[in-house]
């Protein structure tokens, strides 16, 4: 709970900094503040405390996923120091909104009441609607913001309706009360199932699982690249955390009703995500579809709740987020220098900037699931959980689709190493980007070689 309060305060400080004319120090302050909040969060480890009539509950799950979310946000904010160098007038607004996105995420990772679930999703989404459209004079950014807002509010409607129906049947918003109701009720009203279905649609929309994924490539493409990075990492991680929390506490006794549905969605998401990614020439869209495909793999973790897949899900989220941030840290300066977001912008990067090209290569190899990077063990854990829950057919689909996945990650690698260079374009990597990319890749390598501390958390 303290984490949420402190993070909100940090957001307000960022807003006030505008008035006090402290724009120059805002990013270092935000990063240091987040580091302090991270330290405070970690001290909560091992305790389970309920706050405000059990609306919010901090436990090991929220501490672990919350720390991951804070680290991701910190890295993105570090990148923004250079990204927004020409927009100093708005920097405090941007920082504040990015930090409020994190607040939404933290609520989503620690809620124990459906009302807080709704609030968390709204705080998160509203901040993102604004950020997606933050390039005021760019039509595609406006389009992205509006598209995301319209589709997102539609999904919120589903969410509210679902929560209302469940409340109508069980008489409570509280996750554990719903669970007790399910365990004790002899017959469950069909309205309850309808409610669960609507809730599921809303959440699947937010994690961009097929067939609710159509918004994500367009929004990813139109938004400023840094915000795309935030959406691809932070939002995906916290939404899966919320998803897992909901199903492991409230709907643990639901069983087969949701399982086959999620399995179907997972299969579809993996196949659609990977197959569509094959045809993309725009790097942001490519990463959007890769994110969709990874959502499919993460859904395997949601399916494995009965064997406690928390650590597998956490490890996978961390591996995915680190690799994606590293990829964006290399991609953003390339986009800016060449003015293009196509794969061809990366032509010859291997010759011009061998170090950063190597970083991007390693990040992509991790996303493709190749040892010794964290992406490999992440796939292993998720697949292993699915295997112990008996989803053999789904696992075969997952394996075949991850083979397809290799192909499009290699499109970028091939562009960097085999295509001729465009001499006119000079890519300059600011030092922050180099530090962030190497940090993420190094961490991903360490996690891949020595996963014990993370995997033994739960």
């Amino acid at each position, binding site marked *: 709970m303290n984490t949420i309060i402190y993070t909100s305060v940090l957001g307000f400080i960022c807003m006030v900094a505008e008035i006090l004319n402290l724009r120059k120090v805002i990013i270092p302050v935000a990063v240091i503040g987040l580091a302090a909040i991270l330290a405070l969060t970690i001290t909560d480890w091992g305790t389970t405390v309920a706050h405000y009539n059990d609306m919010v509950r901090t436990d090991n799950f929220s501490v672990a996923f919350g720390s991951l979310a804070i680290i991701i946000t910190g890295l993105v904010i570090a990148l923004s120091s250079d990204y927004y160098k020409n927009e100093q007038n708005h920097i405090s607004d941007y920082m504040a909104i990015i930090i409020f996105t994190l607040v939404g995420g933290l609520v989503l990772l620690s809620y124990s009441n459906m009302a807080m679930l709704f609030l968390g999703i709204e705080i998160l989404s509203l901040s993102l609607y604004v950020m997606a459209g933050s390039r005021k004079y760019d039509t595609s950014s406006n389009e992205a913001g509006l598209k995301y807002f319209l589709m997102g509010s539609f999904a919120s409607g589903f969410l509210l309706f679902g929560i209302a129906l469940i409340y109508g049947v069980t008489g409570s918003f509280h996750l554990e009360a719903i669970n007790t109701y399910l365990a004790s009720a002899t017959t469950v009203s069909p309205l309850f199932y309808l409610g669960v279905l609507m809730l599921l649609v809303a959440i699947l929309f937010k994690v961009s699982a097929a067939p609710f994924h159509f918004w994500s490539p367009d929004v990813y493409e139109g938004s400023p690249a840094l915000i795309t990075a935030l959406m691809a990492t932070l939002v995906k991680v916290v939404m899966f955390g919320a998803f897992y929390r909901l199903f492991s506490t409230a709907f643990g006794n639901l069983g087969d009703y949701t399982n086959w549905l999620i399995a179907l969605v997972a299969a579809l998401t993996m196949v659609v995500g990977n197959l569509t990614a094959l045809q993309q020439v725009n790097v942001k869209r490519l990463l959007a579809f890769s994110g969709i495909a990874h959502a499919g793999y993460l859904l395997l973790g949601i399916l494995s709740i009965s064997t406690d897949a928390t*650590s597998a899900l956490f490890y996978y989220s961390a591996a995915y987020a680190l690799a994606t941030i590293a990829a964006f840290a290399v991609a953003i300066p390339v986009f800016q220098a060449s003015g293009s977001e196509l794969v061809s912008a990366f032509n010859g990067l291997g010759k011009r900037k061998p170090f950063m090209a190597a970083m991007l290569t390693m990040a992509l*190899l991790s996303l493709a699931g*190749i*040892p*010794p990077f964290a992406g*490999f*063990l992440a796939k*292993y854990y998720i*697949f*292993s959980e699915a*295997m*112990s829950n008996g989803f053999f057919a789904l*696992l*075969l689909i997952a*394996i075949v689709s*991850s*083979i397809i996945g*290799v*192909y499009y990650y*290699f499109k970028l690698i*091939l562009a960097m*190493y*085999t295509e001729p260079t465009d001499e006119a374009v000079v890519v300059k990597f600011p030092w922050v980007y180099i530090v962030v990319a190497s940090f993420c890749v190094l961490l991903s390598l360490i996690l891949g070689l*020595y*996963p*014990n501390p993370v*995997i*033994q958390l739960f």
Partner: protein
Amino acid sequence: MLTLLLLLFPLVASLVVLASGNKLAAKLALLFAVVELGLTGYGLSVFLLSGPELFTVFQEWITDPKISLNLGLDGLSMLMVLLTNFLLPVIILTSFNRVIDNAKAYFSLILMMQFALLGVFMANDGLLYYIFWELALIPIYFIALNWGGPNRVPVTLKFFIYTLAGSLFMLFGFIALYHLNPGKSFNITELYSMVISKENQAWLFWMFFVAFAIKIPIIPFHTWQADTYKESPTQGTMLLSGIMLKMGTYSLLRWLLPVFPEGVAMWTPLIMGLCIAGIVYASIIAIMQKDLKRVLAYSSVAHVGLISAGIFTLNITGLEGSVVQMLSHGVVVVGLFFAADIIYHRTNTFEIDKLGGIRTAAPQFNTLFLIIVLASVGLPLTNSFIGEFLLLLGVFQYNYIAAGVGGLTIILSAVYMFRMFQRVMLGKTNEVTVNFADLHWNEKVVLWILVIVIIAAGIYPQPILAIAEPALRIILDNAVLN
């Protein structure tokens, strides 16, 4: 300790070479490879004096899933390590007097490849083995991609995805084994003693077999091979055909036969059919080829078909033959591809029809190349003769019809190799070959080393058999149903 030193030295060497300069890289890499070979020689003497127990390394690594740093060297692994570490300095030496851009990256990747290959041959833990198996793919992919021929991009991508697809099925197989294993580990001794139901063995067999069959390659999984061999730079082709292919045949022995005895019993007739058909099919294709490197590529498919057939005979003769032939094929194929590289370097073509008359221009090269060609055909007193003889004897004990058809390899390989040799080396010189210079010092050294090894192993193969036999007996005891 010695095991870890043997394994990690190439990794350190690779990093040092990467940090050095382009001019120094080749010499430095050669130096490191020779030191590693010296270490291997010392390791071999320790192995012969005090047995394989000294080489076991066990260290807990990841607790969930239980993966440990479990390394060991038995006779089979020792021979494969010896092959790898013998060929590496030879392969590096072949690149001298050739222009290679960004040499430090090139040699660093070659040494990285050595590290991964050694890991594959040493690992006694399933997932550790799998990680090294995958790791071996990355350096060779970039070697072929960055230094390969004009058509390299699509060809190497096909190669990468093809082999990775196989590996992922193997990963699926390993995860399934882990869940079936009551001890929940990948330890090889536990996997050997595990009881797996017949139904599970029937499908798990294929999960592993496909991965190995792609790497070897056994038809119909061979379509990536000829193009990749053709497009890779010479050293890449040597690594692929000389050592990497042996990863597949080695894994058949180590990870397939003893773990799934019932699966093997069930599918052996089919696999044997594939192997034997592959020998004849690849030989016929090799006869039709117009490109020197492709002839050698298909001849390699034919030879490894026989090696795999020998492995599936499940008798000690066939298994011993396969090990001997793995080693001799490694040595011979590196010699053949080097000869092709020498010809290409001087004439700029691999087309057989454009060549001819090199014998007159370069008599010393001619003699050495002829000896290697004869070894490839399996002439007595060369190392391949012992291997092919044992293999055919083993196949004969399994089934005489299979041996009859497989025995065609001797005739067919003579047809395509001599046909190639005749058109390339004999006859009159033409404008392409008239200025063919004879061998440089490094070419002489490489070819002489290979020829000496070929003849020495052909005359006195007993040590190889003696080292391999105890390990093969253990494998066979687990692989044969009682």
